[in-house]
């Protein structure tokens, strides 16, 4: 040290030399400037509160499940946190747990997850705990799978409308593109073989290599399950093109009637051909079904050994806290509790859904026929002055500013038809939902009166 540095000085070396960041850091692929997130800001600034701020913004853009939280709380409190959490060992048990940092994940927790996932599917598919890779949330699981299945500049085919977060999760750091599979209301937004073929061809024409199809089942934002026939067609398509099939099933526990949900796991269950099975991967998380998003528990389930091994090693970047695993392992293995929870959760969500759809119908607003999830897909096309994306955003703005309701415009979900909006109903109390419906009624009444006056 103290030796003079070599002569090579960079040409623009002066006091104004600001150090640069990467393209990833400065890009806006994170998508946080879209209306999807802008509405959240409005909510943060003026959040609705029953007593303190009754005229505030009601958050209907966040797909969170609070309807069954009391069941969890009661269970955990009854079992006595100290005792159950760390077993009879107490503090030393905690210590052991705090020291555990294996990327395989706690075996008890993986077994609990496998059993929970089986229960949700009514035992129609089996899950092997050794194929479960834990990640800190489904967001991380989707990104991790993308890193593993595709190289930069490749593409994944994703049916529209889709969850706005995919733009970030699948593309930002991975360098992978999303090519949309266009779906429309003519057939309730189901995926057709023609749409699949067309999307694939679009990618090929642009010289982009397609590595897989990623679907959400039940769908976000549609709030509807994917039909069994469609799943079979999808798998066929993927086999023919020799690509992967990723099924994001994070809302699988939120299907109102268990019989209406077919998991891709069921389709694969009876297939022996490894070359077919090993292209199928499932993503799951506890954030939606259990209403524990803050816990950040996600998982990749893959029928492909290489994918499992790689995902496990890469999960080092996004491990689930050992404390969290331990906390939830005993709860999820308690089959009596989980059976009860799943059943009651489904029932409550169904009732909420019916409340909001009925309420909207009375106001003259139709929704897509849904059977799952924490939201409904509402059609406000008839209210648009201009049947364009701008027109839709204008309406969204009016709803946010005038009605103080934050809902998600279909364009942020890349819907090819304008006028659709996603409205969440499970992240609030029943009273709040009533208030929201009331505001909508009043808005629609005002509009009708205005129209009458004009006419």
């Amino acid at each position, binding site marked *: 040290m103290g030796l003079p540095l070599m002569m090579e000085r960079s040409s623009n070396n002066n006091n104004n030399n600001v150090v640069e960041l990467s393209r990833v850091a*400065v890009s806006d692929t994170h998508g946080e400037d879209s209306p999807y997130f802008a509405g959240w800001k409005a909510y943060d600034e003026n959040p609705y509160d029953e007593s303190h701020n009754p005229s505030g913004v009601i958050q209907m853009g966040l797909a969170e499940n609070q309807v069954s939280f009391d069941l969890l709380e009661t269970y955990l409190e009854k079992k006595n946190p100290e005792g159950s959490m760390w077993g009879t060992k107490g503090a030393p048990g905690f210590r052991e747990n705090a020291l555990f940092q294996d990327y395989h994940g706690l075996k008890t927790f993986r077994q609990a997850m496998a059993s929970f996932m089986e229960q949700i599917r009514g035992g129609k598919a089996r899950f092997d705990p050794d194929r479960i890779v834990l990640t800190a949330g489904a967001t991380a699981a989707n990104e991790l799978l993308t890193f593993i299945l595709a*190289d930069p500049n490749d593409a994944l085919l994703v049916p529209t409308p889709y969850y706005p977060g995919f733009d970030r999760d699948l593309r930002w750091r991975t*360098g992978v593109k999303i090519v949309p599979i266009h779906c429309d209301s003519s057939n309730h937004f189901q995926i057709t073989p023609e749409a699949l073929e067309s999307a694939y061809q679009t990618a090929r024409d642009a010289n982009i290599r397609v590595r897989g199809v990623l679907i959400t089942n039940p769908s976000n934002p549609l709030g509807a399950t994917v039909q069994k026939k469609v799943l079979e067609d999808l798998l066929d398509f993927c086999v023919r093109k020799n690509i992967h099939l990723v099924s994001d099933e994070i809302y699988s526990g939120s299907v109102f009637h268990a019989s209406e949900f077919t998991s891709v796991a069921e389709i694969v269950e009876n297939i022996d051909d490894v070359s077919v099975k090993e292209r199928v991967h499932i993503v799951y998380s506890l954030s939606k079904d259990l209403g524990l998003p803050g816990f950040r528990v996600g998982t990749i389930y893959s029928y492909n050994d*290489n994918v499992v091994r790689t995902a496990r090693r890469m999960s080092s970047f996004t491990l689930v806290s050992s404390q969290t695993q331990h906390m939830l392992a005993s709860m999820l293995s308690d089959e009596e509790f989980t059976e009860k929870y799943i059943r009651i959760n489904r029932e409550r969500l169904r009732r909420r859904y019916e409340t909001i759809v009925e309420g909207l119908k009375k106001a003259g607003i139709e929704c897509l026929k849904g059977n799952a999830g924490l939201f409904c897909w509402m059609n406000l096309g008839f209210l648009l002055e201009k049947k364009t994306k701008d027109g839709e955003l204008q309406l969204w703005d009016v709803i946010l500013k005038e009605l103080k309701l934050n809902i998600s415009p279909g364009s942020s979900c890349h819907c090819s038809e304008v006028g659709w909006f996603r409205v969440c109903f499970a992240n609030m109390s029943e009273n709040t939902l009533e208030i929201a419906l009331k505001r909508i009624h009043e808005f629609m009444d005002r509009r009708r009166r205005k129209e009458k006056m004009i006419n």
Partner: protein
Amino acid sequence: MTRTEPNRSRSSNSDSDKNSGNGGGGRTTAMRVIVPLQGVVQGRGGLFLGSVIPCAFFYFLQFYLKRNRKNDESDNSGEQNSSASSSSSSPNSGLPDPTRSQSAGHLTELTGLPRSLSRILLSPRNSGGAVSVSGRVNCVLKGGDSSPYYVGQKRVEEDPYDELGNPDGVIQLGLSQNIKLSFDDWVLENAKEAISDGLSISGIASYEPSDGLLELKMAVAGFMSEATKNSVSFDPSQLVLTSGASSAIEILSFCLADSGNAFLVPTPCSPGYDRDVKWRTGVDIIHVPCRSADNFNMSMVVLDRAFYQAKKRGVRIRGIIISNPSNPMGSLLSRENLYALLDFARERNIHIISNEIFAGSVHGEEGEFVSMAEIVDTEENIDRERVHIVYDLSKDLSFPGLRSAAIYSFNESVLSASRKLTTLSPVSSPTQHLLISAISNPKNVQRLVKTNRQRLQSIYMELVKGLKELGIECTKSNGGFYCWADMRGLISSYSEKGEIELWNKLLNIGKINVIPGSCCHCIEPGWFRICFSNLSEKDVPVVMNRIRKVCQTCKSQN
């Protein structure tokens, strides 16, 4: 190349064409090809076309050859590797040859077992029916299975040492697990409250900012200040929390460098960087070797040379990653070191990532820990924007399972991008709440940290003493959990092969898992990293006996 003369006039062009056109009968066919070509290149833009066409042809040829060569290269890389390493070893193992490679670290990555996870080697091949995966998979799986790092880890898992239950088992000296620090006392005194408060789930289950609760950030900032003996006051709003130091380093790699760029990393370094910096980012590491003759201290001359050589090869360096206290040596960087580094970074306009995860585990009496934050405290804004610090709460509290690390930066753009990226690697909320209640009592925290340090120091001294008696010297470690041991006297040949042989003996005969220097990219064979945080005082003699056994085996063979 063509014989164009750019200053020819038009009339002379046509003259020469006519002449060439009327060339001898036997060469007519060839002339018919050459003449039009000549005509083309002697026409407008003659010199340009005359250079471009052959160049283009040349490059296409190279490209074609390279593509075919690439496929062969990757298959043969194994053989290339071993031949490279044997050529650098001296069969009589006389004077050690301190350099294994000429260019700074470039060849080092290739020598020895194919364990470093460098660039994607192949584009995925679609062999018939099997569906292909990304190139990354090959890197991850190929590098993993044979690496001593993973092999040793597996052996420990299969046959773990236990004083009573399995006294012949493998002792884990590879990484920090099962830390025997003063945690138990603290837990018994404070845990009950902390645990039950932290475990109530109401109010903590919903979405929270992914980069961490403000309360926890404040507590972490306090911890970091403690580690610097309060010479720096860390601002919680400049912290981004994430699920582990690996994630923190990966996030910084994504933010500070583009795919194809590189970071300079002085070696020996943490084996984890190959994964954290390179696996998913496409960013490369250029190793800057440090030598035992310099006590493994960084030389600015070598650093500079590495930068210059990378530049010549067309590789853009975006930053330098240092660790302080260093892994594996445990040395503390002096103020002069740090100022020199800052100068270097400023001159080159690059970033500095200062990995200070062991800042709270300084156990030596000599030297002081100086955080990079202290160095830039008085500097201009622009310099501060190039400094980013990684901290790991788990290391100080011995809670590795709880996954809670931090990025501290003065650069608002980096903070903004990092915050968004933590959605992909957030800290679990019950864990955040647990940590908040655990560390919000400063007195207890101070006591915990102090006791930890004392224990680390006493184990370290016992271990070093024992090794010395066996003729094994260690570099002076002032912080962290590792001993950097010189076992050159025990290896059969002064080469990586010899080092791996010794590692094998230590694992299979000695039943201890240590990390060979090659995993840390040390260019001098024979050094080993020994982690002592897992040991209690009575374990030290057991370890010594095991090593003694191996020493005896080595001596009888040599």
